[in-house]
């Protein structure tokens, strides 16, 4: 006991700084294997041309944990999502949630993509309650990307009307 506390006293300062320097040593200890899989082999990482009319970009952040997530969708002329990419800077759960979100939106119509719920993502990844907000971030990113796409399409429509008028 005495020895333990003596060591604690000598390293209490050190320990604090070390903890700051070495974040999450081994995610395998804390995360479900599906999270680890998506974290280690994230699907669809990258970017699509954000200036393209057929691409919708969703950019969201979580201020409490400081995570940022970008999710992009490419929609064909039939309204089907043909491609999706993401870039997430954040914890393993946020990365895994956005990875799975891109997999799920691919091949869906816009309306069907809107039906993806954070609870489904959380269930698939077996996220613990404290990490539910990570899947929420992914759902919000999908919504943001879809609404960006819709806005672009509206603009396109308006320019067409103006051009013809």
């Amino acid at each position, binding site marked *: 006991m005495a020895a333990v*506390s003596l060591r604690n006293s000598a390293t209490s300062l050190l320990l604090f700084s070390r903890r700051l320097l070495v974040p999450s040593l081994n995610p395998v200890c804390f995360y479900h294997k599906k999270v680890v899989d998506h974290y280690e082999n994230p699907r669809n990482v990258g970017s699509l041309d954000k200036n393209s009319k057929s691409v919708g970009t969703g950019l*969201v952040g979580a201020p409490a944990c400081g995570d940022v997530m970008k999710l992009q969708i490419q929609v064909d002329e039939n309204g089907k999502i043909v491609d999706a990419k993401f870039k997430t800077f954040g914890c393993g759960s946020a990365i895994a949630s956005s990875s799975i979100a891109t997999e799920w939106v691919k091949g869906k119509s816009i309306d069907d993509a809107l039906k993806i719920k954070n609870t489904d993502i959380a269930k698939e990844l077996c996220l613990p309650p404290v990490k539910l907000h990570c899947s929420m971030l992914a759902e919000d990113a999908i919504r943001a990307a879809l609404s960006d796409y819709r806005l672009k399409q509206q603009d396109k429509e308006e320019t067409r009307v103006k051009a013809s008028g």
Partner: protein
Amino acid sequence: MACDHTFTLDAHKLQRRYLQLQRALHPDNFGQKSVTEQEFSESQSALVNKAYTTLLKPLSRGLYMLELQGMRIEEGTDSGADTEFLLELMEINEAVDEAQTPEEANKIGQDTKGKLADLTERIDAALREAELQTARALLAQMKYHANIEEKVKEKLREFM
């Protein structure tokens, strides 16, 4: 911890006070004392540790000061964040990720330090004026940049 109730703080004074308190409270001093005293020493010394780490960093200090006013940064998506700001964060994060040399990473680290220093000043001003909403928004920005600072440190370690 004998601190003034202000956001700006004298880190040396805080450290001195911390060591002073631990010298008096640390369980090592109570090895020969009663169990009650030992338990008291353990819990008090742990509390002093927590207080010190909370107050030391501007981010946790600011969040704690907000908490004292019954406010906190809510979990979940930042509905108030503007796209420009998120875009900037995205770009800095990507730059850290893609940095090829320690110099490149260092440069981002320095920029981030500057941003954090600027935010610290603005948070101080906001808290002085009791503009809690502003302080909270600035602390949220600080959290994003503090994360980037950590990533830069991580990146620099990879180069070692």
